[in-house]
């Protein structure tokens, strides 16, 4: 039996598609330019798909063992599934947000509230609007609501 060369295109393509998925939450989410639209990740997926298709072609080349065909096909399907998961998460699931029709509109009065800060001290919106910022009265407050880390 002749020794077959390792089908590196298939495996590199697969690893690259996993990297394309994980690099979004761990790396590219840091900069607005790569966060608001995941073009860097889609680019990586593009390269991964090219490698995977070259790998499949190689796996099905005349003279290759059937294991080569099976392995390259399965790994390619997995790589494409990773891409599918990314597209679903970013473009579909990320849009499942409440409509928030009752959120205060521009021009309306912002509802006041009193909450504890990270030190456990009670703070109200009106205090945040009036207490000095760098020695002078603030022009305004930017409220940033976020999901939290629990």
């Amino acid at each position: 039996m002749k020794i077959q060369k390792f089908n590196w295109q298939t495996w590199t393509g697969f690893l690259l598609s996993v990297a394309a998925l994980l690099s979004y939450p761990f790396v590219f989410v840091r900069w607005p330019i790569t966060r608001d639209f995941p073009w860097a990740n889609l680019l990586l997926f593009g390269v991964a798909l090219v490698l995977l298709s070259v790998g499949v072609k190689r796996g099905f080349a005349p003279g290759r063992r059937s294991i080569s065909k099976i392995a390259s096909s399965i790994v390619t399907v997995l790589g494409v599934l990773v891409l599918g998961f990314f597209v679903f998460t970013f473009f579909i699931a990320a849009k499942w947000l409440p409509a928030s029709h009752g959120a205060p509109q521009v021009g309306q009065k912002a509802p006041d509230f009193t909450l504890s800060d990270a030190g456990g001290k009670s703070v109200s919106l009106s205090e945040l609007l009036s207490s000095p910022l760098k020695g002078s009265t603030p022009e305004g407050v930017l409220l940033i609501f976020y999901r939290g880390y629990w």
Partner: protein
Amino acid sequence: MRSIQKSLDKFEEVGIRPVAISVDPPEVSRDLCQKAGYTFTFLSDPKLDAIGRYDLVHKGQGENGGDIARPAEFLIDSSGAVRWRMLTENYWVRARPEQILEAAKALQ
């Protein structure tokens, strides 16, 4: 949050005080601030007091199916009126500091 912290000097220069609000208890926010180096105010709203009043409750999305806030930003002037807001339609897309600073210019 990271980008807000990075632009904190610019916000303070124009008199804007950033305030982050979530359901996280104060201890969690304290840990987060220490780890990530955030120096602006973090408020804790476990009972959805403010989150509810601003209609930002995202039901069942938290730990053990608890309710949390959906991402949103509001710029409020010293009279207490909303001057700018962003209710993102995609969880990953948030207000950029440049956008907020642009809106903040109108407050002066």
